[in-house]
């Protein structure tokens, strides 16, 4: 049923740290690898080695430049996947009942056996989290690796979404936002977790941890970036070399 649950027992989601993300796209690749070979139809690539490669991905990394007047620009890598919204507009627009939000944990999923590939849910999503697979003709989206997080056939440390498990910078955190004591709730509270496009009223579960303030390296506050804590080495030679230096200066 495409009506949304009043509330869900858990609110599973991701806290994505924009300060630590290095933009390596490892999460993009590991997501594609896991989700093309597990739950649902594979994620197709079209013209993969040609002039205009096109493929289905459930996770994308945008890179933005942010610049305030009078300060240096800063680069922010921005991973983007489904935010598993509480008021998910993609679910309510679905005419076939393929899209649904799970009551037990709030994960938004597509039952591909019911999807007719009309694409309306992708229109309804402000975040671009859904992509219609060109080959299969069904809608694909992040499953929060529902086939990993409860999977007792894999080691316990692997029971997190593939993107979280693979991130070499530790920029992606998985947990239950309904529990104020969870790792993600605490991180979000501590760092002032951002809600994307709040005015859309979608109430996304995922939070983005904003970049921490940078040291001011402009103007007078020059910092030797590689060795900020070392005192400058003496440049004046001593002993014989010192005598030679001053003698040569005098000539």
């Amino acid at each position, binding site marked *: 049923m495409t009506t949304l649950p009043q509330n869900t027992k858990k609110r599973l989601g991701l806290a994505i740290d924009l300060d630590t993300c290095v933009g390596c796209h490892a999460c993009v690749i590991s997501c594609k690898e896991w989700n093309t070979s597990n739950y649902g139809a594979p994620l197709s690539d079209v013209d993969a080695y040609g002039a205009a490669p096109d493929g289905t991905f459930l996770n994308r990394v945008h890179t933005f430049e942010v610049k305030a007047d009078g300060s240096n620009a800063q680069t922010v890598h921005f991973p983007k996947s489904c935010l598993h919204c509480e008021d998910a507009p993609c679910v309510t627009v679905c005419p076939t009942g393929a899209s649904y939000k799970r009551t037990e944990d709030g994960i938004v999923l597509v039952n591909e056996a019911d999807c007719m590939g009309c694409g309306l849910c992708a229109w309804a999503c402000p975040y671009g989290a859904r*992509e219609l697979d060109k080959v299969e003709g069904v809608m694909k989206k992040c499953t929060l690796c529902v086939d990993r997080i409860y999977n007792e056939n894999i080691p316990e440390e692997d029971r997190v979404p593939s993107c979280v498990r693979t991130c070499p910078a530790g920029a992606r955190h998985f947990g239950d936002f309904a529990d104020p004591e969870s790792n993600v709730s605490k991180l979000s509270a501590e760092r002032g977790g951002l809600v994307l496009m709040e005015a859309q009223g979608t109430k996304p579960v995922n939070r983005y941890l904003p970049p921490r303030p940078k040291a001011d390296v402009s103007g007078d506050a020059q910092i030797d970036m590689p060795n900020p804590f070392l005192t400058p080495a003496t440049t004046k030679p001593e002993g014989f070399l010192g005598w030679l230096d001053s003698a040569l200066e005098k000539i």
Partner: protein
Amino acid sequence: MHPAPSVIIFTSLSGIGFGLMAWLGFGFPPATGMTAFIFFFIAYALAVGGLIASTFHLGNPKNAIKAFSQWRSSWLSREGIMAIVSLFVMAVYAIGLIFLEQRWQIFGWAGAIFSLVTIYTTSMIYGQMKTVPRWSMGLTPALFLLYALAGGALLAGQVFPAALLLTVLTVVQYVSWQIGDTRFEQSRHTIETATGLGSLGKVRLLESPHSSPNYLMKEMVYIVGRKHAQKLRIIAIVLLGIVPAVILLFVPFSHMFAGVAVLSHMIGLFISRWLFFAEAEHVVGLYYDKR
């Protein structure tokens, strides 16, 4: 938004088809027998043809039958159900008129009202999209209903109502474009609110997440062809409203001129519907620094 031909044909043809059906249901013109058959044939051909066209853009049409199940929340599902209900109720009315010379007016009224509700549900598929500020306003259903009623009156040969409705439609279409142009700014969605990074400064896309356009960009960040939008708006408004209205009011009635009026209106309708999609900007474009 990508102006897919199947969706333009669907909304245009089924809109005008159900519009004609509404007029026939209310008893305008009060035809029976062969004349009624021709009117109903045109209405059904347009309405059903449009509905069939809408299935061409489906990725997985074998599941289309399931689209009748989610009427509780989905406007697209409601649209499918209302279309089928209208077609069936109207068929009873049409059979009475064509074959039995009987006017079962209760079916006519019900069918006409259901036809109008169908057009409203079609319009809400687009009108509900908060992600497309240009569509998400009360003028969207008003415009769809006016298109259907004006086009339907034209096809039903209702000279004075058609001329009046076409004039109103022309004005409302113009106003919708003017207001629509301001909707994205009014929605206050920017690349800063999309990324949440506004407090740190001005944001721009430094590097795209992928090297060539993906589904999202092809479907929702369609910006090709907008440069002629202003010219197309003028052409559309002249063809869809002014030419047919002038013919209806000032040219003595003949089937040939009526045909010219209908053809002119249909071409204008297709152009304006193309613009409805091509000019619509989806907020996801902000993540690509494009509108």
